[in-house]
């Protein structure tokens, strides 16, 4: 297997759940890297997020809502719990209940910036559809640390604001692609 990445991180907001379903349906089940997903879930008054069981329907990779200080394992999918920021520290997922950033908790910027610190150029980041501008600053940090950044093509996105904001802020995004091609890009990592 030829790749230099240690983790894939995906940010998405409005419209992203349906993309993620297709995404995991098409993802090669032997995909070896950990995948961490940050979406803006509604505050749920203590209930568990709805995303993990839904995504689990579409993949044989284990889909987990992580606890604080959860070890990041290969070939596992982690979905940020509602009402917490998700960050990285010494190979672990750490959570924070600090106030929302731009009304979001989890915030994609917080997770992306922390992932950039932790994984540097070994990070593969994807930003999907959404109706706000979260994630743009985070992608910029990832780019500065040499990570690989893909943004969903705004033409292909149900809500184009989030991809557009990122494309506007970050000049050297590696690829702007429709969702289908993004999965193919991940699958192509494991050929050979």
């Amino acid at each position, binding site marked *: 297997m030829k790749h230099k990445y240690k983790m894939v991180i995906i940010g998405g907001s409005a419209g992203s759940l349906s993309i993620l379903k297709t995404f995991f349906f098409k993802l090669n089940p032997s995909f070896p890297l950990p995948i961490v997903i940050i979406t803006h879930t509604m505050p749920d008054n203590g209930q568990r997020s709805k995303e993990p069981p839904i995504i689990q329907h579409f993949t044989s990779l284990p889909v987990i809502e*992580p*606890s604080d200080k959860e070890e990041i394992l290969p070939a596992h999918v982690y979905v940020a*719990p509602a009402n917490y920021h998700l960050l*990285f*520290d010494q190979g672990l997922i750490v959570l*924070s209940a600090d106030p929302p950033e731009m009304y979001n908790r989890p915030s994609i910027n917080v997770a992306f910036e*922390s992932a950039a*610190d932790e994984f540097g150029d070994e990070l593969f980041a994807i930003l999907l559809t959404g109706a706000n501008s979260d994630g743009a600053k985070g992608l910029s940090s990832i780019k500065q640390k040499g990570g690989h950044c893909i943004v969903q093509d705004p033409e292909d996105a149900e809500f184009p604001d989030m991809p557009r904001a990122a494309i506007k802020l970050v000049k050297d995004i590696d690829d702007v692609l429709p969702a289908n091609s993004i999965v193919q890009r991940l699958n192509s990592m494991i050929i050979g």
Partner: protein
Amino acid sequence: MIENDHIEIDLLLEAIYRKYGYDFRNYAYSSIKRRIFHFIENESFKSISDLQGALLKNESVMEKLLLTFSINVTQMFRNPQFYTIFRKLAQELFSNMPIIRIWHAGCSTGEEVYSMAILLTELGIYDKCRLYATDINEKVIKKAQSRIFPLSQMKMYTQNYLDAGGEKSFSEYYTARYKGALFNADLAKNMIFSVHNLVTDKSFNEFHVVICRNVFIYFNSDLQNKVIDNLFYGSLMSGGLLGLGDKESLHLSNSTEHFKVLDKQLRWFQKK
């Protein structure tokens, strides 16, 4: 290669410890870094070292930063099911006990201490309970003692209270005045508030219950394990209960062999 930020933050935390005795050196780095950068931005410092200089010369800067570091977001009846479980456990375990000591460690502004007092009142055992509520920060303790919480939160707290199995009308527990809800003095009669630092202070009693929610998420693994293995394990009586935040666990602690998991989802543990 260690980043410059990392070096500067380590030095800042060392300076705070040596000058003021607050030990944040083993806090989770990624979270404390965010808080420091927020503080620098909000208070218009130029850099981490600029902040360090000001902080060494001026104690009021330290007080402000302490607030940033220690504020722990809380709610009344946060994760209502946590209280539903406790209601059952308390009925099973504490009905026949003459006295029950409960420690809210890192109580912040006290919302969960009042929630506990309400629950114990409804169980009819509050008179024999003592609620010890501690926090590293004197300011939040003062706020907790005021018995006043924002009126704007009461709608959410009422729902939480009902979801937690509350038996009355929540508004019976407070009087609305101006923008605040003043909670009944009866609820606070068995509360003992005090400043306590989980990192540097020792245990001060033996407890039937220790509740410490969303404090460990700000500690690194070593510090979390140290506090659980030494302070909490040593402070609980055999069979005593430990309640954590809804995303906190013991899995990295050596203490998993010392604690039984009572509810994996809602994070209730029992000392073996």
